């Protein structure tokens, strides 16, 4: 071998280089007196402007840089004062007055006043970003005095305070430019930098009106592949992981170095049906489908217990949920399903064409497996289903054009009030994807949002749940739980059923 000497030298050099780099990287992890919280997530924000943001990744950053008028009590979806100390409405819930906290400062030093709230809402209305439709209810905003602001609504709307907890209700300073990149809020953290697709760095706002946060810096790192996020968490490179996939939850919950918190969420997943078409205009057939699905198998085997059952239109974590629905809701019953199918005019599925079920597993990976179970279940009663897995924009296109037999999708509320499930999903003047139309539902849903009295509202929602379940407009599937994983030394993190991720109380021991 003429160059064996060189080869040997090269190998020795490489081995030394690897050995050196191994020891160097192990020994000299950046030492710093600062307390840094590294958060791993799977999506990059689209914008940091509260008037434009309508996705979870953007909201996570905005929620920590800004404050909304109304907040949530720790770990719940109950409302609590935030920038507004209190609020009240007139008798028919069409005029809402908010009393602002005094002495709240923006990161640029300017003070929060009623004028700024008015400006921020009007700015958001003018920009017409994706969440701007949430402000459609507002007729005008009046400044009563320096710290009192009044919202005059177009129609009575009792869920208004819960709407005021949405990020679009975050005040922004006057004349600020480029808020999509350089947000200036009143929140516990300031933006230091944002490298798109890679990471966002937030630094503590030492002058925060509730006191300085417990960590000096939060680094939000984007791992587009959840499997890589899991490796980073297990290696300790990430202190807190958002966006771990259901299939990894079991293994991670057994890892002794990692803590898990979970909470029942507010997202609902369902199997929708196109009432505009035969055979779904037949209530008996829709009921038969409801009885034919093996919900326990889906929840326990496919989802490995990472979800709970949805029995009616509302998830258990929202107020107004009626536990009675668990008694009268649909459960897996093969015999009853077959009987109802025969009554519907399709004994053993005879005379029924192949039904198309459209899904988008790109949006939620586990949806594919759930759809396969439903396909198998329906086959057992004689209903043939073809699953069509589409990418998200194509799926939405077909959903909005009502070009489907059945679909599976989930819904995340914009404000935590039964109104945000019932009206958009079941009223014929809502999104009305299914073409479901029941005048009782239409009227009650309208009434419920216009009544200010809580007990009266609860009674209406109780009745609504019963009526809707009786009509079986969908097959109600499940409510995914929310999970967050973190290192053992991370303390103080509180998970909310709403997608509110709060770094303010988090500490690193």
């Amino acid at each position: 071998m003429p160059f064996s000497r060189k080869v040997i030298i090269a190998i020795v050099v490489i081995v030394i280089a690897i050995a050196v780099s191994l020891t160097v990287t192990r020994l000299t992890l950046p030492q710093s007196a600062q307390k840094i919280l590294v958060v791993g997530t799977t999506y990059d924000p689209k914008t940091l402007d509260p008037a434009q943001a309508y996705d979870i990744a953007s909201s996570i950053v905005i929620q920590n840089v800004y404050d909304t008028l109304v907040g949530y009590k720790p770990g719940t979806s109950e409302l609590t004062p935030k920038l507004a100390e209190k609020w009240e409405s007139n008798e028919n819930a069409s005029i809402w007055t908010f009393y602002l906290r005094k002495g709240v400062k923006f990161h640029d030093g300017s003070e929060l006043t009623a004028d700024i709230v008015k400006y921020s809402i009007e700015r958001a209305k003018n920009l017409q970003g994706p969440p701007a439709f949430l402000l459609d209810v507002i007729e005008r905003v009046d400044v009563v005095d320096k710290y009192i602001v009044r919202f005059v609504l177009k129609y009575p709307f009792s869920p208004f305070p819960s709407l005021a907890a949405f990020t679009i209700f975050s005040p922004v300073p006057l004349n600020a430019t480029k808020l999509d990149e350089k947000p200036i809020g009143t929140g516990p953290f300031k933006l230091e930098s944002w490298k798109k697709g890679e990471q966002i760095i937030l630094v503590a706002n030492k002058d925060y009106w509730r006191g300085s946060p417990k960590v000096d810096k939060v680094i939000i790192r984007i791992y587009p592949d959840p499997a890589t996020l899991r490796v980073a968490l297990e290696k300790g490179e990430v202190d807190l992981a958002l966006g771990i996939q259901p299939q990894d939850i079991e293994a991670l919950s057994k890892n002794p170095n990692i803590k898990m918190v979970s909470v029942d969420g507010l997202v609902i997943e369902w199997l929708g049906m196109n009432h505009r078409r035969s055979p779904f205009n037949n209530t008996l057939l829709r009921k038969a489908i409801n009885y034919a699905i093996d919900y326990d198998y889906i929840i326990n085997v496919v989802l490995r217990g990472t979800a709970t059952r949805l029995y009616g239109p509302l998830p258990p974590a929202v107020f107004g949920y009626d536990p009675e629905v668990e008694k009268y809701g649909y459960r897996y019953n093969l015999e009853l399903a077959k009987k109802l199918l025969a009554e519907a005019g399709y004994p053993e599925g005879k005379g029924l064409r192949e039904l198309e079920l459209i899904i988008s597993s790109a949006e939620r990976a586990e949806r594919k497996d759930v759809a396969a179970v439903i396909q198998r279940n329906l086959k057992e009663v004689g209903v043939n289903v073809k699953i069509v897995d589409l990418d998200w924009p194509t799926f939405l296109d077909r959903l909005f054009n009502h070009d489907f037999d059945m679909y599976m999708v989930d819904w995340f509320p914009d404000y935590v009030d039964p109104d945000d499930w019932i009206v958009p999903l079941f009223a014929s003047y809502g999104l009305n994807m299914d073409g479901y139309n029941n005048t009782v539902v239409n009227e009650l849903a309208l009434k419920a949002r216009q009544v200010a009295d809580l007990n009266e509202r609860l009674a209406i929602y109780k009745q609504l749940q019963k009526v809707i379940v009786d009509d079986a407009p969908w097959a109600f599937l499940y409510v995914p739980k929310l999970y967050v994983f973190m290192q053992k030394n991370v303390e103080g993190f509180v998970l909310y059923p709403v997608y509110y991720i709060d770094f303010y109380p988090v500490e690193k021991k």
Partner: protein
Amino acid sequence: MARNIVQYIFYRFIQSVLSLFGVILIVFILSRILPGNPAVAILGPKATPENIERVTREWGLDKNYLDQFTIYISRLFRGDLGDSYVMGYSVSRLIMERLPTSFELVITAFILSLAIGIPLGILAARRHDTKLDLILTSLAVMSFSFPSLLLGVLLLIFFGVNLGLPVGGRIDPRYSINFYTGFVILDTLLNGNIAAFFDAFMRIIPPALTLAIPLAGLLLKLSRNSILEVMMQDFVRTARMKRLPENVVMYKHILRNALLPIVTVAGLYFAVLVTGDIVVETIFAWPGLGRLVWEAVTLRDYMVIQGSVLVISIIYIAINAVVDILYIYIDPRIRG
């Protein structure tokens, strides 16, 4: 002769411009025939019909395709790639942010594949028809038929979990580095932070290897065959008969002549690497151009799709042209 070269380069340039125009047209048409409305994709499932209409009008998507195309082309001539619908920024800015990141990975992968593929190819050729040759060529075939998704995940687990090395992302987020070049490995050195340099260096290896291994296999096979072909030719036999040292024969006579197909493939593959690393960028949390394209496609962000594909095509076509021109210098026969 000199005139011939100038003519050739001119001809090549015209050809490149024509192919570029073809690419612009095809991408424009393709992104429009994808099902799914960008307004719906961005506004989400709760979009109101009025909002969808307003956004569609704002982005000029209500105009007919010919008008849209004319506007796009006229902006292009002014060097304007348009704005992203989703992000609101100019497309050129988004691309410039991602391009160095992709290049850093691709250049590293390229160097790795050359360093692995060609020496092994020479070795296989020298020991042709032995067991070693058989093993090397089999490994080569395996390496380029192995799915990169699987290879990436395996390397992630091997480096990250088994070896316990840092993986995922370009650098540990706790290092604060000032960026000068956009290449993390260089920037850590410019910052004088050796620990950060090693961290970044260890992190680029697994994704670079994922990209490099298939190319290394290809180069191994190609250089082996090419060398063998040249070895059989008369001038090599002459050189050997002159009792020139084997190394001189190998490097001066054989390799020089065997290099031609290797340069072609390596050059074209460089461009393929820039486009083809979406999977690798996703697995290793590498915020490069591939992922920008992918995100743009999933959101139907037409301007970003068009802009990034255009930039990638320019790279591809430019490299193609450079390779063709390099030919002239490597292979005198073309000059004729």
